[in-house]
């Protein structure tokens, strides 16, 4: 279903692209001038085209039945010890699949150490969690369910509980060869659903596809700065605006992040996964711990080359000396990455 949608959107994009190329052939490469400087942002678009289809692994191919089961599980609070919180508590569709809090709220309403990351576009992810401790969505999905501070439900109890809900059996039967409920099948179904959570077409995508009026001149300047002087694209690359890399970017934190997994590597201490920038203006506060309240503050952190200068600070972090115009342009560009998504339908839960 989602795959078809993407292909249709891409088809329309290709037509717009062709029209744009025809238009470009008859004019100068300079797309305009702002604050006395020429903009030639389109030269960077090659790596930012949306993909045609959503990938899935061979051992868990996406099917409508798996997505339906996975979505039901994702929104079911009975996957937590107190039957009080589902995956969607922290990955809430109304907040672009985050929760809008500086740090996640776990079992017993206790605040955790890190912010809930969005689950947008994880079908393409090569590392999961802020510290990358899982490599696949299947591996990731069961982590928060059984983590004591999060949903706090041991997997054997989760399976027993799901087996006691007759309404789940037909959903498992429709997805797998039989109605057996196992932790592995729960993980696979949740992963299959999560792969369908893809950020919608944003004004930036329409501009990439050739619609020159889809974004402002200021945003085009911002995109140029993003790819040049500010060097954001060295990590926030590709259409997801992340390469899933880990860096210490000088946030104010005592959390060693990926460094706690790789204690011998000095360069990776205080490092966290590069987040996607899709729908970023709807997902503040920012960083792994919510320590930057706004996108303006985030830009300020990068302009400083990081707020905290430690031995592990990424060599890519250097003071940028951005002008006020360039900062405003970067912000204008970031706003163009937000899609206007339709409301998400919440499933009726089995009894």
């Amino acid at each position, binding site marked *: 279903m989602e795959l078809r949608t993407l292909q249709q959107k891409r088809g329309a994009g290709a037509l717009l692209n062709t029209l744009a190329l025809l238009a470009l052939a008859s004019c100068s490469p300079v797309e305009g001038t702002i604050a006395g400087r020429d903009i030639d942002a389109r030269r960077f678009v090659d790596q930012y085209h949306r993909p045609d289809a959503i990938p899935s692994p061979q051992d868990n191919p996406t099917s409508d039945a798996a997505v339906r089961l996975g979505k039901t599980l994702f929104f079911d609070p009975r996957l937590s010890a107190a039957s009080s919180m589902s995956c969607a508590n922290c990955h809430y569709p109304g907040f672009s699949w985050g929760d809008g809090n500086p740090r996640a709220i776990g079992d017993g309403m206790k605040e955790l150490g890190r912010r809930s990351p969005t689950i947008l576009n994880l079908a393409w992810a090569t590392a999961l969690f802020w510290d990358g401790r899982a490599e696949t969505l299947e591996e990731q999905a069961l982590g928060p369910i059984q983590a004591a501070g999060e949903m706090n439900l041991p997997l054997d109890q989760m399976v027993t509980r799901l087996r006691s809900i007759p309404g789940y059996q037909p959903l498992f039967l429709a997805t797998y060869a039989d109605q057996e409920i196992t932790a592995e099948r729960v993980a696979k179904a949740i992963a299959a659903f999560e792969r369908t959570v893809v950020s919608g077409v944003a004004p930036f995508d329409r501009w990439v596809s050739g619609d020159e009026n889809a974004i402002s001149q200021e945003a085009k300047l911002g995109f140029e700065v993003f790819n040049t002087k500010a060097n954001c694209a060295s990590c926030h690359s590709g259409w997801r605006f992340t390469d899933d890399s880990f860096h210490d970017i000088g946030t104010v934190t005592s959390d060693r992040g990926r460094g706690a997994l790789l204690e011998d590597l000095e360069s990776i201490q205080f490092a966290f996964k590069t987040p996607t920038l899709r729908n970023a203006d709807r997902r503040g506060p920012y960083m792994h711990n919510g320590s930057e309240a706004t996108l303006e503050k985030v830009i300020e952190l990068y302009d400083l080359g990081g707020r905290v200068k430690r031995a592990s600070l*990424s060599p890519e972090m250097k003071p940028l000396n951005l002008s006020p115009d360039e900062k405003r342009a970067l912000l204008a560009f970031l706003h163009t990455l937000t899609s206007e998504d339709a409301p998400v339908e919440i499933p009726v839960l089995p009894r």
Partner: protein
Amino acid sequence: MLKMLFAAILLTPALLAGSTAAEHVVGQKNKVFAKAEITVKPGEKVTFRNDDDVTHNVFSTTEGFRFNLKTQAPGTESVQVFDHEGKAEIRCAFHPTMKMTVQVKK
């Protein structure tokens, strides 16, 4: 051009000496290793060369092969000797897309 000259200087003594030790160079470009797997003999060196415009940090946590080449600026290279038989999984600390295997066989 400079890189080619550098490589030529590195290679020449080995050729002149008629050494049988193979030169193993693994590039790092676009945040992937140029080779997914290489096979070397015990005692041979592998040069990891950063052809990217971002910093890398090649390392292995495979038991018996643990090493850390530390941060590698663009355009630089580092050498690691694999002195005994086995299979080492190689990663970049920053970029999870960078994965490769070094097979060490007599």
